[in-house]
């Protein structure tokens, strides 16, 4: 409504002033989002809200479309020219908003700053390490690695390219003399992207304007975009209903039915790359939250037996969770990524609710009488997370595995789940977590969740159940060094078949579906990476 009001107002203004300098129609849009970024510095914090917001101003060499498929960004083509060298051709005619031309020097500069970033809340070094960027000519670069590196294009979707002419106020030696705050006030926020930075009112809003010098392929439907931060769910919905914003993200599931009934609104829904899953302690013989049915500690840990894990998977009615807890807005999951993603296994579907089969498996494993568990989960991280944990516990309790539920705020939960136990081991035995694949393919969750926990190799960083299977590790490592896409996809699928199909190293519950709501006349491309971006919002044509 406010979108239409503003259009009307602008049209009126044009009519009255009739000035030749006025655009035919100033299209403005206001978007209410849940999370404020922590910085406008492209390398300060590898975080969803940051990557989404900063991506309006800075482009990557290669970009993801709304389905996380690769599209050209500042590179127009990319291909491996040998086992260890990738060649990228850069987009001619691209200009930074300060008027300077974009060249290979900017790419080299950006990679240097990203790779050497000091401070910050998590760097992009995960994606830059082991890569050497070489300028061949102004419009060509080579990226060299020590060993074959197939994920090159996916990694390049993370690093944004800034201007090597950016001037900052920081110490000369640190981060090229450009501080995070120089980006927050606009001094260094000079990019080649479809929008240019106007202003960030902390806690309130970020404003962008159309970048007229942009020559890429992303749509630029808006002359001015305002992102308003409305963290509270009912308030965000109210702001949309009141017509104060044209779109909101993270529509709460309880409100979806109601908003569908509003004639003035439209909803966009799409599956995300995030799987909600259960991790089970597969390492310790005495797991702290595995007990007998009366709550006494057990000397053996039934969760170490794949049959028991499989049985638990069969005891969970995913369809019921999706229908009741998620109000139909989720997709039952049988592996790490939903349909359409690279490296999925063709063999795995969501386990059916089958108590009889589960009891048989438990009996085979020697646990026919059941045992006791406690499920731990966050209550403010994923959509309806606490309710999902409760539902899982009820299914297990009803089928002979009495399960207690303990949920807590994410700021307490994650440090306990990762290292709350003695010697920095995971504190819990049975936990609810979620994982979004930033690279848009299966190696990311395999590497972090199912590969053997090994800090020295950087494997299994979020493997809180400590699943370990050398055979799967081998397949994964082989996949990570296989440049041929088809071969790599097969290897990743095989690794998934072992990690989830045979071992049930994690129990996938469902893929999260995200919902955006817009005023009538607008439409949003639901993004699998959960980002809310102005160039995916367009007027209905």
């Amino acid at each position, binding site marked *: 409504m406010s979108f239409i009001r503003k259009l009307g107002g602008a049209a009126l203004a044009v009519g009255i002033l009739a000035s030749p300098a006025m655009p035919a129609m100033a299209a403005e849009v206001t978007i*209410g989002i849940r999370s*404020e970024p*922590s*910085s406008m510095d492209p390398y*300060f*914090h*590898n*975080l969803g809200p940051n990557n989404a917001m900063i991506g309006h101003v800075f482009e990557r060499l290669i970009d993801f479309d709304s389905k996380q498929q690769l599209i050209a960004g500042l590179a127009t083509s990319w291909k491996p020219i040998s086992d260890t060298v990738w060649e990228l051709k850069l987009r001619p005619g691209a200009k930074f908003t300060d008027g300077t031309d974009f060249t290979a020097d900017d790419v080299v500069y950006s990679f240097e700053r990203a790779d050497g970033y*000091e*401070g*910050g*809340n*998590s*760097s992009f*070094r*995960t994606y830059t390490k082991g890569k050497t960027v070489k300028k061949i000519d102004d419009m060509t670069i080579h990226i060299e690695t020590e060993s074959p590196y197939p994920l090159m294009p996916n990694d390049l979707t993370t690093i944004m390219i800034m201007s090597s002419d950016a001037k900052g106020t920081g110490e000369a030696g640190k981060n090229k003399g450009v501080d*995070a*705050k120089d980006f*927050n006030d606009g001094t260094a926020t000079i990019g080649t992207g479809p929008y240019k930075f106007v202003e960030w*009112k*902390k*806690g*309130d*809003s970020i404003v962008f304007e159309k970048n007229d010098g942009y020559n890429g392929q992303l749509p630029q439907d808006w002359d001015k975009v305002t992102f*308003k*931060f*409305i*963290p*509270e769910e*009912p*308030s*965000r919905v*109210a*702001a949309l*209903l*009141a*017509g*104060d914003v044209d779109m909101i993200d993270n529509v709460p599931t309880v409100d979806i039915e109601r908003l569908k009934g509003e004639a003035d609104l439209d909803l966009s829904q799409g599956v995300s790359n995030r799987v909600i899953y259960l991790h089970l302690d597969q390492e310790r013989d005495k797991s702290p939250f595995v007990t007998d049915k009366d709550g006494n500690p057990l000397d053996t840990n039934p969760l170490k037996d794949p049959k028991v894990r499989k049985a638990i998977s069969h005891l969970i009615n995913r369809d019921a969770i999706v229908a009741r807890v998620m109000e139909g807005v989720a997709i039952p999951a049988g592996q790490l990524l939903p349909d359409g993603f690279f490296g999925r296994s063709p063999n795995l579907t969501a386990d059916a609710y089958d108590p009889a089969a589960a009891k048989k498996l438990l009996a085979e494993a020697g646990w026919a009488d059941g045992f006791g568990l406690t499920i731990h989960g966050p209550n*403010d991280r994923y959509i309806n997370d606490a309710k999902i944990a409760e539902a899982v516990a009820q299914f297990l309790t009803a089928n002979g595995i009495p399960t207690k539920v303990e949920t807590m*705020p*994410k*700021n*307490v939960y*994650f*440090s*306990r789940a*990762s*290292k709350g136990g003695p010697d920095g081991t995971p504190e819990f035995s049975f936990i609810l977590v979620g*994982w*979004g694949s*930033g*690279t848009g393919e299966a190696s*990311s969750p395999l*590497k*972090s969740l199912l590969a053997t926990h090994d*800090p020295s190799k*950087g*494997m299994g*960083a*979020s493997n809180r159940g400590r699943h370990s299977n050398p055979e799967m590790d081998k397949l994964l490592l082989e996949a990570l060094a296989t440049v041929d896409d088809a071969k790599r996809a097969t290897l990743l699928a095989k690794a998934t078949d072992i990690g989830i199909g045979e071992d049930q190293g994690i129990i996938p519950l469902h893929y999260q579906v995200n919902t955006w709501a817009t005023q009538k006349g607008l439409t949003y491309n639901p993004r699998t990476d959960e980002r809310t971006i102005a160039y995916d919002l367009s007027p209905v044509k």
Partner: protein
Amino acid sequence: MTVFIIRRMMQALLVVFVMSFLVFGGVFVVGDPTEILVADDADQAERQRVIESMGLDRPFYEQYFSFLGKALQGDMGDSFVFDEPALLLILDRLPATLELATASLLISVVFGLPLGVWAGLKPDSITARTIMTGSILGFSLPTFWVGIMMMLLFAVVLQWLPSTGRGDVGEFLGIHSSLFTWDGLQHVLLPAVNLALFNLSLVIRLARAGTREVVHQDYVKFARAKGLSDSRVIFVHVLKNIMIPVVTVLGLEFGGLVAFSVVTEFVFAWPGIGQLLIMAIGQLDRPVIVAYLMIVVLLFVTLNLLVDIAYSLLDPRVRLRDIKA
């Protein structure tokens, strides 16, 4: 009196010191902010790097003493989340909260006093009973719920007022505030009323009680006997005498409004310090939480002191002196 003020200052420093220890220790125990801040797909080495760059790998006492050392020089540390000085982040957001608190205080006084005096003058009338029942609601209904309801009614159904956020900022006498623009006033109205409800009820009750007491006193009777008009008796003689408790309480409540407008700010997406605090707690941004609470303690101590001093100036019977145990 000077001795009194100096002693008060010393007490304040002690309170701030104890508080800093409690909050610092409390947040330290709750958890590790890097678990929330660091990207999911970062490997263990990257996690370790962030932990070290924030100084979180050092033992508690080391972290605390290095914090104390810097705090003594006025540096409360850099926010973990934003990597900017915590104090600046708070001061940056303070004007928004101050204007919300001011607007809310004005609403409480402008509406609370007349309603309370009315209820005190005609305690048995239906209007008075309605006012008093209303004030009970003001005390007891949760701010969160009332905020959402007001938003639904005035922004969604009637569409009279904007739902969330702060409006345009104007300048007047060198002060920047959204209270100086029409857009800003529209935006501040709902959250200010929401925040004012509790104090409005408080003022109504104080004014009513004061009026009930004062109207039976001799000087009011004498004023009436002298033939003064009703309005002069009420506005000059009654009002003046019920103001002392009202002013005292509101002085303290203003501190409360600034410090704890958290819920209202969160519901109305008001970019003030309350919202900053909620975010900081959610992400265990310890420097911001500690700096915020230390500022709040200082604010309260100062307000208390000012109220005491003002009181002794207003009422000559009150003397400031130490009460030794």
